[in-house]
């Protein structure tokens, strides 16, 4: 096990253009499951590839286990990586795919079968060892890729969107298995995804990236409840945080905090008159799309999320008093879009 650290890590593909990764400083904890989360083009895969040694940084340092590894080739870094496409060797059987790293690292031959069987057993693919990758389903391929990664017991695991090729149902179960798997082996893992649900569910901590810059590093609870800026506030959460602009501030609140006023517990509230335009029925919850009526925020569009346990009557066309507890309001500077200290404000 080892800690991965980056210091002022930057990657510029074309001189004069904006870097794909800009001055990234981060460090994993021992045995942690760290998630790089960001939209496509945010630099998360480039960052991972630099840690793997597949991409040379323009500047900055990468440390694995306290040692600077910038000059080391991928094989000298003692890492294992699972690619988005799995990158299984199509001409080799599952057994030979899994034993390839052992051969390449010159592990004594008599240990191969035992290690392959251990890895295959851990992932439940012991019966597939004679098959070729093309004879496997998406989920099975993913497990073979994982088995190939763990077989030589790496110091660090790098996973590049390994679930994105699976269908939605399989993805949920694979996610759970991956979490169990990480718990059982306890190796420091860096996981890249653009799927916030995956990030929230699996990550010990999340690194939110945008345009090659780290916007926030924190536990899922921290990045969701206390976003560092408006990007994090709107990128996490579906539907995203509601943002209202006034003077030099932006105030934000989550759709699930914007509730009918009589359902809120006593305390300080910001209350609005809310006209519901239409309702999405999602089974366990209803998402209301509407706008504020009257006051300073007249006709600002707001989304609210109500649990299925809430009373009926919140239908399209209805107008109700909705409110947010003041403790649920988040404030951002309008210029920098960064978090700023809470303020009291005459909401009406």
């Amino acid at each position, binding site marked *: 096990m080892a800690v991965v650290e980056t210091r002022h890590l930057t990657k510029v593909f074309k001189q004069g253009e904006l870097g794909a990764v800009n001055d990234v400083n981060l460090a994993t904890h021992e045995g942690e499951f760290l998630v790089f989360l960001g939209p496509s083009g945010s630099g998360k895969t480039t960052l991972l590839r630099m840690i*793997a*040694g*597949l991409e040379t940084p323009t500047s900055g340092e990468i440390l694995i286990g306290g040692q600077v590894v910038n000059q080391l*080739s*991928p*094989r000298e870094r003692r*890492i*294992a*990586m699972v*690619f*988005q*496409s799995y*990158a299984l*060797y*199509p*001409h080799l059987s599952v057994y030979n795919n899994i034993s*390839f*790293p052992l*051969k*390449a*690292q010159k592990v004594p031959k008599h240990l191969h079968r035992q290690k392959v069987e251990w890895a295959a057993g851990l992932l439940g693919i012991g019966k597939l060892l004679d098959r070729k990758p*093309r004879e496997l389903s998406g989920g099975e391929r993913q497990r073979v890729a994982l088995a*190939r990664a763990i077989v*030589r017991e790496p110091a660090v695991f790098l996973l590049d969107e390994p679930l994105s090729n699976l269908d939605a149902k399989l993805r949920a179960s694979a996610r759970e298995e991956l979490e169990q798997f990480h718990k059982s082996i306890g190796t420091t893992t860096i996981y890249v995804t653009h799927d916030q649900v995956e990030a929230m569910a699996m990550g010990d901590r999340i690194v939110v990236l945008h345009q090659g810059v780290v916007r926030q590093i924190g536990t899922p609870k921290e990045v969701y409840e206390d976003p560092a800026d408006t990007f994090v506030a709107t990128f996490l959460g579906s539907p995203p945080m509601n943002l209202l602009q006034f003077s030099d501030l932006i105030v934000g609140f989550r759709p699930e905090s914007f509730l009918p006023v009589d359902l809120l517990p006593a305390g300080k509230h910001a209350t609005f008159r809310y006209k519901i335009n239409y309702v999405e029925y999602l089974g366990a919850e209803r998402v209301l799309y509407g706008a504020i009526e009257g006051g300073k925020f007249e006709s600002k569009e707001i989304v609210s999320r109500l649990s299925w346990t809430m009373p009926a009557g919140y239908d399209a066309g209805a107008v109700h008093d909705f409110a947010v507890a003041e403790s649920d309001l988040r404030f951002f500077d309008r210029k920098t879009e960064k978090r700023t200290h809470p303020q009291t404000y005459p909401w009406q």
Partner: protein
Amino acid sequence: MTDRKLGALMFAPAVLFILLLIGAPFVLAVLYAFSDVRIGSTGFHFVGLENFRSILQSPSFRQALQNSIVFTIGAETIVIVCSNILSIALEKPFLGRGFVRFLILLPWVAPVSLGTIGWKWILDSIYSVITWVLVALHFYKPYGAPMWLGEPHLAMASVILVHCWRLIPFSTVIMLAGRSAIPKEIPEAASIDGAGFWRTLFQINIPMMTPIISIAVLFGIIFTFTDMTVVFILTAGGPFDSTQTLPSLAFATGVQGSDLAAGAAISLFLVPVLVAVAYMMLRVAHRAEVV
């Protein structure tokens, strides 16, 4: 016009081409091989296997058959190794790659006869620039340098190398296509798994390129086994039949020596090899489609 008729009409030129330019001469060659036809003869007498019997007893034929095998295997081995190396060198972008690719492709686009005539001068016994350089560098005394086309082993080596010079570009283009069809992540995964350059090359890249390498090899065999231009221009089969191959012997016997029947019989010995290669090509193509 119905679709059926239109289809037949569109298809007709290809069928005519094959029937008139390949089918008819082939049937004629088979007929001649069992006859006593010579250039200028008016009659046609069936002589059974007589032509084949006399060819098989001829030392020239046996030498030509052996030369054809050496020529094909030697040239193909060099071509495949060199084109593989070139495809590795030309895969990654570098300054001037486009120009280098163009230069490498030149021997293939230049007419065979012109290129080979150029080589005939380069390897000439008196005017050879290679000899001149070797003498100037004092590797040989003046008039003591090897005769590239005049000594049996050197002549064969020269013919093979000139043919390689011509065939390597074609093979390189095929190899480059095969190499760029390997997803980028696969060699990357191999490098992370701990494989170095050689292991990645021999255990990952080359096995993954097998279908396309097979195509390059099979095309190369056809081009080499049936080629007579290089041999004919450089050495005309000499010295002492040491570079004579089946096609050049068939031409020398049938056209230059007027014995059409014997020439046809010699050329029929190419058929089994070509049929086997064609069958294997179809199999490879079929398999490549299925995978």
